[in-house]
């Protein structure tokens, strides 16, 4: 539904934007250096990345709040921005809904007036009548469970309520596309988790199409239909949450999402999707490798801590079984972590808290070949 093609945004080098971590190209500094993606109807599409990766700039370019240097943005059949043809539809003509990181609740208006504003400023021909405005605002407030606060001043709401108010205001015009700029980052941890599910539920029930910007990987994994992981103004990988987690395409994605054990390895043999590699500590088998490397290539191995099977005894009949010594143990309630030393390598393991092995104990661990991830070295 929304297509973004080779979107670029650069700033003059003279204006120092320390908050951006730009890829340097001559005298121009790129905050966004060529981003392509497509958002399908009904999807919650997330732009995920560390601060300064260009995700917010990308979102604001879609919103029309920032004028990109190059590229093309199309919504449905309408071109919103096209640098080649000099098309740039103004933000207030794009008909999008947006929730800002600071909520941007107007403090001089009541809750009701905040939500009715987008309807009241519609062009006269399209503007709904007084009664319809009333109904639509009330509906939007009901959906966000703010119905009881309608006549309050907007400043008298709690953080979570303000967040929902911002959402109600963005929803009330029933926009084709919603833009959400880190909407949960100002809430405390408990509330944030509740609101994740709340937002997800609303998005499904109202069948919203949304672009969601966040730097919180857990939030992205929970909420998204698809995620675009961004770094230094570029998209590193686009995929479903499970794909992003289990099959990271680059080292950055593997490092940014969750934690991982990394080691360099040399490819010894390739047969179909099964790849055998040699690491400094021993041999590993990886299965289900999609883009198989050539024999002799150096690759990066990534193994998630929860994919490391720890046991006191040697089992012998499982592949990828190594011996090591427990160095540290950390109990965290729902899980327990062990750090296992193999030579000078430290393997991070996460298991069920039933397992508890004292430091200094000799142990064995194995990794399912399907869980051994090959990442191209960059």
């Amino acid at each position, binding site marked *: 539904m929304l297509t973004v093609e080779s979107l670029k945004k650069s700033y003059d080098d003279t204006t120092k934007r320390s908050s951006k971590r730009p890829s340097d190209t001559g005298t121009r500094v790129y905050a966004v250096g060529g981003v392509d993606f497509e958002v399908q109807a009904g999807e919650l599409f997330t732009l995920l990345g560390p601060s300064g990766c260009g995700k917010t700039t990308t979102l604001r370019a879609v*919103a029309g709040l*920032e*004028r990109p240097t190059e590229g093309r943005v199309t919504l449905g059949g309408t071109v919103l921005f096209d640098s080649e043809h000099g098309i740039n539809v103004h933000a*207030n003509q794009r008909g999008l809904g947006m929730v800002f*990181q600071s909520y*941007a609740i107007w403090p001089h208006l009541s809750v009701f007036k905040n939500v009715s504003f987008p309807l009241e*400023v519609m062009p006269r021909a399209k503007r709904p009548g007084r009664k319809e405005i009333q109904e639509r605002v009330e509906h939007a407030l009901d959906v966000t469970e703010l119905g009881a606060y309608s006549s309050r001043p907007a*400043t008298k709401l709690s953080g979570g309520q303000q967040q929902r108010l911002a959402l109600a205001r963005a929803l009330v*015009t029933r926009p084709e596309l919603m833009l959400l700029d880190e909407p949960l980052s100002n809430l405390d941890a408990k509330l944030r988790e509740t609101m994740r599910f709340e937002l997800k539920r609303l998005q499904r029930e109202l069948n919203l199409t949304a672009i969601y910007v966040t730097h919180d990987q857990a939030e992205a994994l929970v909420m998204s239909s698809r995620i675009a992981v961004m770094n230094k103004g570029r998209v590193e990988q686009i995929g479903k949450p499970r794909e992003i987690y289990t099959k990271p395409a680059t080292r950055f994605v593997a490092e940014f999402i969750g934690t991982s054990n990394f080691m360099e390895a040399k490819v010894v043999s390739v047969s179909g999707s099964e790849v055998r590699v040699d690491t400094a500590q021993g041999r590993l088998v990886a299965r289900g490798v999609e883009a198989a490397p050539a024999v002799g290539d150096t690759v990066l191995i990534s193994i998630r801590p929860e994919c490391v099977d720890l046991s006191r005894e040697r089992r012998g009949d499982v592949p990828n079984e190594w011996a090591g010594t427990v160095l540290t143990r950390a109990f965290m309630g729902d899980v327990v972590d062990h750090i296992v030393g193999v030579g000078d390598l430290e393997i991070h393991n996460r298991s069920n808290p039933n397992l508890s092995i004292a430091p200094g104990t000799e142990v064995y661990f194995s990794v399912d070949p399907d869980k051994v991830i090959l990442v191209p070295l960059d």
Partner: protein
Amino acid sequence: MSLTSTTTATRDDGPASRPGPEHRFRRKGPVHRLLRLIRRPLSLQGLLVGATVIVVGYLALVPLGYLIHDTFLSADGSGVSLDAFARAYGGDSHAGEMMLNSLWFAIGSAALALLLGTVLAYVQVRTDTPFKGLFFAASLVPLIVPGILYTTAWIFLADPSTGLLNSLLFTPLFGSSPLNIYSIWGMIWVQGLHLAPVAFLLMVAAFRAMDPSLEESAAMSGAGRLTVLRRITMPLLRPAMISSALLMFIQSLESFEVPGLLGLQNGIYVFTSRIYFVLRSYPIDYGAAGAYAIGLLVIAVIGVLLSSWLQRSSRNYQTVGGKAFRPRPVELGRARAFVGAGVILYFLVTVILPVGVLVYASLLKYYAAPTRETLGRLTLDNYRAVFTQPFALTALKNSLVLGVGAATVVMLLASIVAWVVLRTKAPGRRILDLLAFTPIVIPGLVLGLALAFVYLRMPLPVYGTLLILLISYCTRYLPYGMRYASSAMAQMSPELEESAAVSGASWFQTFRRVLLPLMSGGILAGWVYILIVSFRELSSTILLYSPGKEVLSVLIWEQFENGQFTTLAALGVCMVTLLVLLVAIAYRLGARFGLQSDSAN
């Protein structure tokens, strides 16, 4: 019992002073606490604080007391009477006209300054306009070009017969000379332009404190630029605009330079020029002058109270979100060139033209429009006159002595007061704070008159010396000094002092070796600021100086009254140069006047 009584009990020195049950009840009163404070062993700290309280109270209250006393008591000593008010406001005094003029002048100037300041602030903060540096250069004008010089410069530019704009621009182009600076419009124009930078700085602060996403979210809701401006931006800025409008209003009301130079010519009186006029005519009617002064004071106090009340009640707008906002300037696109041209035009009209015409006039024997003839006769004679005649050097010396003296005394007093107010639990510290801020509502001319009342009566050899000017400057600038000192003090954690005390330092050692060095940045900035503003002080000086004891600003005033415009210009150029130098030094020392809001009077 209440919390107060527990704290008093713990602070008591020993069991001997512990009160019986029937005393306990009375002990809660502030009078008792004050008594207890006095009963404490006299320490250096106590003495210093006590002396400060007395000095501040003396500076702030005594002149007002004399002013009220001398105005309300009839001349023959027969008790309270309102005769003075009857003479000042009644009958054929034309007081109604004078008050209307005052209001019209103050409202007009405030409106002009606010309009210019708000537009400029929006352009500076919210757009990608070119020449952003020029804004802050222009915002220094009131600091560097004193009101009296700014007004004179505009006389050179817009005098109906000799003004350059009339003779060079309007007469050749339109065949008439429409500009008449000696009118209420001329007064509003000059005062408004001179105040606009102050409004600009206040509004810059307001724009910066406002989350840009409040406007962006309106745009995302489908509102056009004008709708956003009308329904979001303006309502959110209204509190800031109202309080700066009031500040501009009060400052214009108190202004003496502009109505004095421009209004007296055609008999357009406002409060300040009326007081001056009364005191310059014979026989001097001190009572009537006092009555005018009290009228002005009352209006100023109402304004200040209203403004602080409005500021307090409007604070809730700015606390929403409370995050640091990343500036996202609006891209002007095609309008950028026009806006840039506007900025240049503003800079040209408010800075280049007035300063340029001063320099030009300073090089002439007699003021005339530039023709080939006059340009051929440019001369440095005026500068020679300024530098060779003793009166100018004496005035410079007097100004310097007064500036340095006032700055030193004020900053010393202010740091002690700030310490007492912010760091101790001394009873009555709020009153001390209030006292130190009181002079801000006293117009310069009113203070001058009040001090004249005090020292004409007192048998102390103060009247007619530089000391009376020093007292006046110290009083006037104490609130400004307080602002610098308390912000410097507030930035410092009390633990720094506590750790010094724990390390065994006495109070005085702590003050001298920990507090003063840490506050020195802010105090130095305040010191230079007061030095600079005392150079421009005219409105209280004009009533208190005596011949032979002139300061620079008075000298300029005298030159104006004698019609020596070109010498005045030369003197003015020297003064501006000196002030530029001082401001540059202040910047070197890290003072940030650009963010200071109170830079004009």
